[in-house]
């Protein structure tokens, strides 16, 4: 186990809206805090990976100009909603390869009020002309199904409901109820308000079964993590070593071919594959997890990932939520941060922020929302297209 990679320091900004700052400011804030948390500086870093989906290119270099231009290699990464996890994975790979002892991974996004993602209005073309890979003569969103995110993920959930008993509107709503409730304890969450089941089910329908309160907001924020090789960590003071968190598995997968994949992005198979690899690499099973931060971009998504990550019996996600399993006092607390639904989802930051959350619990530093005695946790993100990142973290022995 001498070649493990560890999280030395980590931080995130509160997610929300920062009209007076730009994305570089947010990335710099999270980075400086993560470096300070690890007791190191940018001058100790051998590599920097910066993840963002919507910002101007060169985020890593622009960040360096704020916090230190040391000439180290910079990897600017983008991988849909798995962008942040990909930044961590990039640094992890470099350390594993022996090319770096220490590196900084940062994820950032400034979305403001972007509103509904995806889905196109009709084009301005006045004469029909076939174009694109399907020879479409007009925008097909709304005619040949939906391209919007709430709708695509609604369909992912409804397919699960078709195949499995005990899953419907109420189970999806309960996921959102839980995450809003959890967020009341997290000072870093974009929203911190509890809602009743009636309020959630009665809020405006976006794409049934997803109502407004079952959808993540857009927002701004950044998160960062300093990763270090085990060898280098062992040269550090005891109190630093005690706070370090071990990365027992770092996995990235893409979606293998499935029959329906060309019309509905498959968020299941690649998550199952990543989970299988991660559990095998870490030598733990889902029953060993003390907490999970998973990709609840919509309530319908969280429910199906209970099954994909093996947190429940196959087909049993409805029972799992109904029996309280993923609540903070349940069998496997899921999204005690409030999740994307209430903590927020500044896309590039999300995959680093969930590692921050799990690491903070494993260190016993999560304050009011602390999962007592947490020793092992899992962070999962998925980006459509698709990319899935899973990190399993373990408390220092």
């Amino acid at each position: 186990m001498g070649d493990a990679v560890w999280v030395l320091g980590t931080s995130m900004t509160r997610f929300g809206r920062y009209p007076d700052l730009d994305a570089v400011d947010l990335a710099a804030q999270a980075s400086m805090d993560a470096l300070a948390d690890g007791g190191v500086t940018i001058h100790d870093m051998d590599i920097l990976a910066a993840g963002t989906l919507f910002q101007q290119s060169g985020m890593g270099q622009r960040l360096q100009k704020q916090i230190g231009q040391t000439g180290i290699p910079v990897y600017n990464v983008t991988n849909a909603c798995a962008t942040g996890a990909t930044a961590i994975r990039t640094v992890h790979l470099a350390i594993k390869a022996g090319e770096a002892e220490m590196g900084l991974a940062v994820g950032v996004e400034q979305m403001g009020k972007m509103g509904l993602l995806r889905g196109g209005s009709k084009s301005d073309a006045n004469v029909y002309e076939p174009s694109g890979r399907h020879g479409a003569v007009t925008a097909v969103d709304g005619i040949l199904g939906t391209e919007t995110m709430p709708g695509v993920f609604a369909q992912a959930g409804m397919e699960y409901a078709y195949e499995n008993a005990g899953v419907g509107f109420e189970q999806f709503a309960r996921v959102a109820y839980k995450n809003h409730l959890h967020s009341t304890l997290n000072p870093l969450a974009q929203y911190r308000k509890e809602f009743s089941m009636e309020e959630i089910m009665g809020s405006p329908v976006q794409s049934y079964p997803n109502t407004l309160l079952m959808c993540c907001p857009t927002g701004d924020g950044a998160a960062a993590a300093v990763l270090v090789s085990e060898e280098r960590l062992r040269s550090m003071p005891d109190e630093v070593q005690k706070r370090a968190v071990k990365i027992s598995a770092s996995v990235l997968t893409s979606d293998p071919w499935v029959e329906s994949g060309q019309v509905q992005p498959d968020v299941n198979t690649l998550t199952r594959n990543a989970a299988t690899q991660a559990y095998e690499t870490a030598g733990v099973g889902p029953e060993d997890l003390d907490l999970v931060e998973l990709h609840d971009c919509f309530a319908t998504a969280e429910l199906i990932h209970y099954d994909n990550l093996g947190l429940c019996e196959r087909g049993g996600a409805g029972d799992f939520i109904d029996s309280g399993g993923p609540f903070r006092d349940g069998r496997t607390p899921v999204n005690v941060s409030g999740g994307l639904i209430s903590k927020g989802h500044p896309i590039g930051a999300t995959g680093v922020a969930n590692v921050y959350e799990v690491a903070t619990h494993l260190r016993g530093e999560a304050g009011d929302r602390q999962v007592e005695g947490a020793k092992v946790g899992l962070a999962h993100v998925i980006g459509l297209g698709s990319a899935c990142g899973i990190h399993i973290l373990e408390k220092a022995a």
Partner: protein
Amino acid sequence: MSDEENEAPAEVPTHLPIVDYLVLGDDPHLVANECTGCEARYFDRRNACARCGQGEFASVRVDNAATLRSFSVVHRAAPGIPVPYVSAIVRTDDGTSVRSNVVGLDDPMKAALGMRLTLTTYGCGTDDNGTECVAFGYAAA
């Protein structure tokens, strides 16, 4: 320039399919590019089959009969798109997944998982030349 001016004006079609994998006429249906190796189907062109890697495809007809495997009743969409509508993932009887709308329901919440459907076509707009765009959807069978 002059070549363009000398060209005979193109005949304006009375209607066009919304996508090139919709075949109109007396018997509207979808077509797919099917891998000759493993029978995976694609509505667009592929350089090699994403499933098995072979590079040969044959055009095949897709069954019009289908089952509703998943849907969402969309209430919020980009400007200009009429809501609510029923976005659907259907599985045709010959095993092909298709994304489209369920049409013809007086109440969108009458969409039901597992309901039997059949392909139908309808006009969804007209351009400045008077050409009608013909879309496809799935109606209760």
